[in-house]
């Protein structure tokens, strides 16, 4: 696991390409990141197995820890991966705070492409990024509209809401509230919850008293979000929930059981078969493909490699310009498991439209546009009932 000794830049003589997978393997979201990393690494393995990448170059993932909260540790790790391990691009970071720090303090200075699978903060839209920063996670603004549509179509006029107290949760909750109220709904109460805390009875108590036809839980499915749902069900505060993207995954209905039946949610994706394919690929590879941001991670890695292929270069400055074109129409649609095919098509000069596991569509200089599936839990499973 030593980097090649040739200095970077200039003619590409490297035998392999390294891509950093920089996520919070320790810290508050440590339980999400293994699946995310596995997603990204699955894409790399697929590319390697195809043998079609840049005349047989191999891609190696290099993991680095952001801790999710400690910007200093995240920058140091990124610095090390870029300058010492000589990675050519980054899948990461995860939490918006550390992602911004990594971008502004290291990636930008070194001119390295970063695709974050999970940072959703609107502030990242406008950050000065030299065209180097992208994300495959959809922005909150669009989701607020989708949530409102789903609720209104089902005639749900009042809702209580709680969000995880970070930029993702807060941004999403703000957006839902604005859209929903404008559409004539009432948010009876809107309160944050902290992830990883010991007890959520107080939050649930308040939510229950405010009441509402449904409880919107804008959190993470294996963090506080789950705690809130569990507690609400336990003391009979709510029996129906709305679950935005962070809450959708098989593990939740599994853990909660039949009580979750009838709850609804939304999740990025089109009617494309991408998500399902990815899920079965993931379970073959031994990880959960439906966890929050695992598909996005796969897509982030895939986009990087496809763009490299198109630019015929692993230098970020060369390939950063191709990422958006590959992600968006027009072109041949590409799904998970078809990366090898896609690489060959690129070589042949065929235009491609990477759909991937999360139906990425990049807008606004590098954000996911976001198509959504409407989910309903039926018989202990997340079932897609509609596309929006």
């Amino acid at each position: 696991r030593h980097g090649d000794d040739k200095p970077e830049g200039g003619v590409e003589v490297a035998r392999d390409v390294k891509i950093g997978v920089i996520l919070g393997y320790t810290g508050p979201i440590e339980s999400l990141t293994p699946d995310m990393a596995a997603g990204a690494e699955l894409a790399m393995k697929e590319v390697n197995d195809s043998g079609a990448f840049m005349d047989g170059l191999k891609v190696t993932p290099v993991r680095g820890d952001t801790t999710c909260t400690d910007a200093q540790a995240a920058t140091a790790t990124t610095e090390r991966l870029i300058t010492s391990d000589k990675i050519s691009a980054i899948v990461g970071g995860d939490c918006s705070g550390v992602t911004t720090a990594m971008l502004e303090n290291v990636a930008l200075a070194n001119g390295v492409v970063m695709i974050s699978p999970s940072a959703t903060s609107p502030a990242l839209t406008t950050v000065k990024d030299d065209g180097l920063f992208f994300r495959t996670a959809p922005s909150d603004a669009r989701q607020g509209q989708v949530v409102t549509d789903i609720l209104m179509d089902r005639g749900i006029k009042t809702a209580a809401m709680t969000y995880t107290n970070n930029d993702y949760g807060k941004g999403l909750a703000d957006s839902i509230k604005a859209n929903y109220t404008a559409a004539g709904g009432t948010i009876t109460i809107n309160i944050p919850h902290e992830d990883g805390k010991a007890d959520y009875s107080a939050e649930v108590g308040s939510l229950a008293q405010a009441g509402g036809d449904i409880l919107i839980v804008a959190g993470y499915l294996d963090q506080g979000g789950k705690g809130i749902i569990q507690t609400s069900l336990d003391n009979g505060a709510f029996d129906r929930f709305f679950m935005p993207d962070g809450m959708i995954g098989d593990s939740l209905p599994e853990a909660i059981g039949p009580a979750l039946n009838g709850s609804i949610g939304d999740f990025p994706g089109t009617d494309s078969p991408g998500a399902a394919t990815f899920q079965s690929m993931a379970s073959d590879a031994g990880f959960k493909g439906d966890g929050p941001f695992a598909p996005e991670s796969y897509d982030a890695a895939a986009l990087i490699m496809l763009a490299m292929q198109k630019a015929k270069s692993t230098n970020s400055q060369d390939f950063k310009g191709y990422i958006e074109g590959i992600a968006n129409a027009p072109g041949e649609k590409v799904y998970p498991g078809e990366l090898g095919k896609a690489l060959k098509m690129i070589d042949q000069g065929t235009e491609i439209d990477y759909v991937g596991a999360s139906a990425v569509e990049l807008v606004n200089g590098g954000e996911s546009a976001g198509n959504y599936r409407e989910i309903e839990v039926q018989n202990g499973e997340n079932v897609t009932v509609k596309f929006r």
Partner: protein
Amino acid sequence: MNMRVIAVFALMGILLAIVGMVQSWNVAFNILNLCVISAIMTLGVNMQWGYAGLVNFGVMGFVAVGGLAAVVIAMPPVEAAWQAGGGRLMLGFGVMAVVIAVATAFWRMTKHRLSRRARYIIMAAILVLGYGLVRYITDAAVVAIEAVEPAKSGYLGGFGLPILLSWAVGAVVAGIVAMLVGRIALGLRSDYLAIATLGISEIMIYILKNEDWLARGVKNVSGLPRPVPYEIDLQQKAWLNQLAETSGQSLANASSIIVKLCYLSLFVAVLVGLFWLAEKALRAPWGRMMRAIRDNEVAAEAMGKDVKGRHLQIFILGSAVLGLAGAMLTTLDGQFTPHSYQPLRFTFLVWVMVIVGGSGNNYGAIIGGFIIWFFWIEAEPIGLWLMDALTAGLDADSPLRVHLLESAAHTRLMTMGVIMLLVLRFSPKGLIPEAKR
């Protein structure tokens, strides 16, 4: 004794040099910069604990206050937000000040005139009414401010002044906060004081997280102006291109190193200055008095030392240093993210630095900051390397090896723990113990 100081610092230099050569100089300087900031934090804690025996577990809060100062000083004001509710908010604060003034004046003036019960009741009434009034004024203002482009600003912004100024302001503001905290909590004994300060700092962080008008709360403020040039601007400069060429470095590398050196010189200047002041104080009768108070408060009090006053003094000074470090850190990060203020990172880790380095001793505090930060960052590659080495004999995809390498991130914690335990085992009083004078 002196030999030991030199040896330990030399060791530290060698470690950094190894990182520079094996990994990269950028990594080495990145670590060094944070070592220096950590050392300033440990100086602050060491003043409180090492000199005076005060257990301040509120490090996190004071560092955050310093960071907030950086935002308030350096960010440009958000005109629209000021128009939307700035005036009203300020009015609210004005009213708050008046309420507090009235309450204290009432409390002072009625000391011997009214019955205790009447005093309490009227006081409570004043406070409740005042609180209501203030909330009435500010709530609307806050809503208005936070509604101004919530995705991008939604706060008042700052004063748009040079960010270096915030270092001093951060120190002063942290000092003022410390004065308030100290008045409440300093009467408590060690463990109680520890948890009380920790609690108060949690409260401070919660305010920062939830009061969006102040610094955007959990939505973070990023893109703070820098006191040093940007790498990409440097990369346009002819002299740097030349330099990079002659030294054989890539342009990106060279520019990053230059930026880091700029920061480093600022940080080192602060550290040296503080060190000089602290060392002077510790060696003066002032330091002797502080140590006496630490040893035995009752006796010190009987020897004419105003123990309470001195505790407050050192609490304020130490916290101001923490505030300064906080502002420096935020400057270096270029962003302010309330989420990152976790007890583990800012309270526990800094305490580990102080104890491992050797409390009551400024050299010790500094080296503790250096060593522990170094391993905090390098534990990850060390752990990874360890796992790799340990399992080298195993088949490349034997399940054990795969599992071990997969969980390698957690070796970061384990390595950190083991290093701490080893260091404290072999020098239980810290790397550089308190010197006898």
